[in-house]
């Protein structure tokens, strides 16, 4: 993840849009979040964050299985982070590796802070985050989506968790590094913030950051997380029907007609936004 210090010929001024994709240092990649997209989960959210594609599902609370660990006084959040084999360039053979185990743990702990766990003692809440396409910052995308999934499931929360990474490339702090920036960068700091308290519930750093940089990076992270929060909120407002209170609509998608695609051409068609099935966004019976 952290490469060597790069002293390339390209020098970037701190205000220049010098990143390889044209973003300024504070700019996030394009993010879309949709809540309530999976019929088989109690709560779900799908996020596209740059090229990252993550599906988060929440289940529960439920009674623990006989061999499962639980807390006497509160609910336990179990988050499992999994990467699909085709999510990375080199086909991923082992589904559960050490990195996935570590990420699962930090995500579980972060989400645990956000859940009003005393409401359901001795119960278990399962969260699954599945990475379908990875392009750096997956754990932040996962945490962001997982938080929305919990809210979608109606699980009582203190608030939503929003996450974003701040990296360092060529000595400069950059918000939301993508894969190339992460691989060539000198540091990566993912931060997860719980609203409304503003507490940090996910905090990791890989690489090297000097004292002054950490404060600055945190400031940038908070600002980015605010933007992420507003997208999370929008996704839930759409999902629960704008102004009309509806009992949660079944997460059922409608497809107007059969789609047939000409297959067999040599070109791989990119996935166009307007080709995707339409989520049932028009709440029924709400004026």
């Amino acid at each position, binding site marked *: 993840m952290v490469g060597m210090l790069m002293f390339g010929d390209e020098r970037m001024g701190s205000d220049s849009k010098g990143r390889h994709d044209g973003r300024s240092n504070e700019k996030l990649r394009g993010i879309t979040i949709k809540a309530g997209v999976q019929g088989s989960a109690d709560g779900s959210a799908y996020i596209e964050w740059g090229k990252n594609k993550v599906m988060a599902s929440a289940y529960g609370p439920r009674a623990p299985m006989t061999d499962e660990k639980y807390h006497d006084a509160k609910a336990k959040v179990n988050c499992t982070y999994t990467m699909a084999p085709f999510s990375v360039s080199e086909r991923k053979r082992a589904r559960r590796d050490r990195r996935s185990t570590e990420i699962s743990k930090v995500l579980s702990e972060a989400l645990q802070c956000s859940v009003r766990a005393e409401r359901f003692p001795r119960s278990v809440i399962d969260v699954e985050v599945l990475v379908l*396409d990875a392009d750096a910052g997956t754990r932040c995308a996962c945490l962001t989506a997982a938080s929305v999934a919990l809210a979608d499931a109606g699980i009582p929360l203190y608030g939503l968790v929003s996450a974003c990474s701040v990296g360092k490339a060529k000595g400069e702090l950059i918000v939301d590094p993508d894969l190339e920036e992460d691989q060539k960068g000198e540091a990566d700091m993912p931060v997860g913030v719980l609203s409304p308290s503003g507490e940090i519930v996910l905090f990791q750093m890989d690489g090297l950051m000097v004292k002054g940089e950490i404060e600055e990076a945190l400031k940038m992270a908070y600002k980015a997380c605010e933007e992420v929060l507003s997208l999370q909120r929008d996704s839930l407002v759409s999902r629960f029907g704008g102004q009309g209170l509806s009992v949660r609509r079944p997460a059922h998608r409608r497809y107007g007609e059969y789609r047939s695609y000409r297959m067999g051409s040599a070109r791989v068609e990119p996935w166009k936004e307007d080709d995707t099935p339409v989520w049932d966004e028009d709440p029924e019976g709400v004026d």
Partner: protein
Amino acid sequence: MRMSRLNSPLIRELALSGRRLDGRGPYQMRDLSVETGVLSKGFSSSRVILGGTELIVGLNFQTSRPYPDHPGEGVMHTEVHFPGRIGERYPSERENDEAVELSRVVDRGVRHSGIIDMSSLCIIPGEKVWALYIDIQVIDHEGNIQDASNIGTVAALKTARIEDGGGTDGFKELSIGDIPISTTFAVISGALFLDPTLAEEQASDGRLTLTLDNVGSLVAAQLSGGGRLDRETLSKALEISALSNSMTRERLDL
């Protein structure tokens, strides 16, 4: 209202008169949507949505040694991946068994239909061949992973590209032969129901999958879930699957 095992008695009672909870006819398929090229990492891919079931298929090629008993042929690996937890089910022995079974049925359909000429995947006989990895990731399970996987695999194969020669820059299309299409039925109260939902699968006595190629030859078959069939029902299933398959082929322009 999410349908589940709770509704099994109702599903079974309706099945006695050939009816289904969602109002479909016994041989009616749910809405189907297939897209290709949905991943950014250079895998050939497809995304299939069949009713409420959603999955993504990713394919790629890596070089490998051939199997000793087939030195002039490429190698193929198919795997269905379920999310860790689906509804109330847990990653368990039985679930792994199901994933393995599904993978192998898709694999057989692909292999025996001749959709890919395995000998065209040979680079240096006895030493180096292309290995095709087919990964089917289930995103939402609302029944009939089998047919969705099959369609997704076929769609991804049709857009697959393989390097021209062992490792040069050029890519060429994979040469595609006969296309296998599978049809899965749930056996409920002794009757057949095509393209079952998850609740129907849970209420069923078993499932039957029949995979046919372009000319109607059977290239794979599987009876699973503990079902029992009489011969008449099996013949009926063969008949219906031939019809259903040709409809699917037409719709997807295969």
